């Protein structure tokens, strides 16, 4: 640097202030060429969890159906609306229900916030389950994605726990009796059941202690755990080489690009380049030469589709929140369970099974289900059929999965529509 360069005058500094602030905030202007596109994805905190380039298969809407993304965005909506609700909610048996009435009656936007929170919670359970189905039916849990699948099962359980703990907070009849029954199910677990039940309720019945405990789990412990688990889930997607895709999704590199002499086995190009640290951790497939591939730049292709999915998710939740009010039953009456006392719909399959046997319906069968889910990628080791829906090679696995799924759905439907007072069989028509 030459000493002659005069420092710019204060006046120019002031004139250029907005531009300079902007440039210090965003390192790159809107990209116009590939180098800038890479740089934008790479140097922005919120974008850098994405790869610079993404495989075309990943962007096919009909492949992922965007379900994992929708789950994530619903979680974001839940966190934002949940924090706002916390400003008015009091976890006390004397006040909780009145606070619900206040939200409805006197808090500005209280009703719509509560509706958004409630419908996103229901939606998240449904969408996470559909995402699980997508991952299974496309064989995406196979090597090297086994652990991310296991993590996914943990995410599903955390999502269910979130909604279970949140269910008590309005302290209305539905809440009280659903949690009375739910915690009693935990009591049937062998050996530790009674202790778990006692720890959850902080006493021997559902009361103030239980409400406080559920509140702490719902607003602090579980969301923090879920956030961490989602972060690892996303990290693993990158480290597992992006989303799964069919084996033939990548063109085989033409011979001359591989520097292969006639007769020798084709091998990946070994440029004269020294491998950088980034290249090493990404495995042996670091691109040195220009191997033709099926990728496109994340900016704007991936980012636009993600933004689109977010806007759609938000729009649907807003419309639902404007059209339908979250239910609020009578205040808790510890002497009279409503008849029938029903859990939220996604637990009604459980409730139906529990009405045959508390242990098998509440602990045994669900335990076996979760165990099978966790073990699926370690039991099914065949590498075939990855990356396509309903692959012929996966006929057996998919059939077993769909049978279990159908059984679950049938139980939910029976519990929802075919059970009346005293849990007697009724026909809804």
């Amino acid at each position, binding site marked *: 640097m030459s000493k002659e360069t005069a420092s710019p005058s204060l006046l120019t500094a002031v004139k250029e202030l907005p531009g300079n602030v902007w440039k210090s905030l965003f390192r790159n202007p809107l990209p116009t060429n590939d180098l800038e596109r890479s740089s934008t994805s790479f140097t922005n905190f919120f974008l850098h969890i994405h790869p610079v380039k993404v495989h075309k298969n990943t962007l096919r809407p009909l492949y992922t159906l965007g379900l994992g993304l929708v789950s994530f965005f619903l979680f974001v909506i839940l966190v934002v609306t949940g924090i706002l609700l916390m400003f008015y909610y009091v976890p006390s048996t004397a006040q909780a229900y009145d606070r619900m009435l206040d939200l409805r009656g006197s808090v500005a936007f209280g009703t719509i916030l509560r509706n958004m929170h409630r419908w996103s919670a229901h939606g998240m359970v449904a969408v996470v389950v559909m995402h699980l189905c997508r991952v299974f039916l496309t064989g995406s849990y196979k090597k090297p994605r086994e652990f991310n699948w296991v993590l996914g099962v943990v995410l599903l359980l955390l999502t269910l726990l979130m909604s279970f703990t949140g269910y008590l907070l309005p302290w209305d009849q539905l809440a009280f009796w659903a949690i*009375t029954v739910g915690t*009693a*199910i935990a009591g049937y677990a062998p050996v530790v059941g009674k202790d778990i039940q006692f*720890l959850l309720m*902080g*006493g021997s019945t559902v009361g103030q202690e239980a409400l406080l405990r559920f509140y702490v789990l719902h607003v602090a412990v579980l969301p923090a755990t879920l956030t961490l688990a989602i972060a690892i889930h996303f990290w693993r997607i990158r480290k597992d080489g992006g989303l799964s895709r069919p084996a033939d999704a990548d063109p085989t590199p033409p011979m001359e690009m591989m520097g292969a002499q006639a007769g020798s086995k084709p091998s990946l190009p070994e440029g004269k380049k020294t491998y950088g640290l980034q290249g090493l951790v990404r495995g042996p497939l670091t691109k040195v030469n220009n191997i033709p591939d099926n990728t496109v730049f994340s900016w704007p292709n991936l980012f636009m589709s993600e933004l689109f999915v977010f806007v759609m998710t938000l729009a649907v939740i807003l419309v639902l929140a404007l059209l339908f009010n979250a239910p609020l039953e009578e205040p808790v009456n510890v002497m009279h369970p409503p008849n029938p006392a029903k859990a939220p719909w996604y637990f009604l399959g459980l409730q139906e099974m529990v009405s045959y046997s508390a242990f098998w319906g509440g602990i045994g069968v669900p335990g076996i289900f979760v165990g099978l889910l966790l073990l699926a990628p370690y039991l099914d080791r065949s590498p075939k059929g990855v990356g396509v829906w309903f692959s012929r090679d996966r006929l057996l696995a998919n059939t077993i999965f769909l049978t279990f799924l159908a059984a679950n759905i049938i139980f939910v439907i029976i519990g929802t529509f075919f059970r009346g007072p005293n849990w007697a069989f009724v026909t809804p028509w």
Partner: protein
Amino acid sequence: MAVNLKRSSGGGTQVAVSRRRMLAWITGTGLVGSGVLSAVSNFVFIKPRATYGQPQRFSIGKPEDFPPGTRIALETRRICVVREGNRLAALSTTCTHLGCIVGLADTGFACPCHGSRFDADGTVTGGPAPRPLPWFKVTLAPNGEIEVDKDTEITPGSYLTL
């Protein structure tokens, strides 16, 4: 940034290595130790020592309040008082299935939650309930009041004779 792929020796003299090893041991023991300690103490912490609730022994009034032939559910106490002639008993109304409150029915008791049914003696006649409704110990206190002790279960069918 080139990387040396050969495993590096770690460098340093013998003294540095043994010092590092000792540090690693102290740190490791400390970490594992505090992990175990905090897990245990957290568990002890969240397990309440005192619970707030209703007393398990209480009086329910004089025998005259329950004329022969009555079956009265005392909802706050979660019991049902039965009197036949000069015999009196108290049955639990907490369903042995999953803790809902059973209601009085013509045939005995019915649970609204998963449809368990009990006869007038509390014996299970249908539904998922695994056990009959417990009978609690009933005594006549010196002041003439009936006292129920929910901590003591007695064999079904044993009445207090007044």
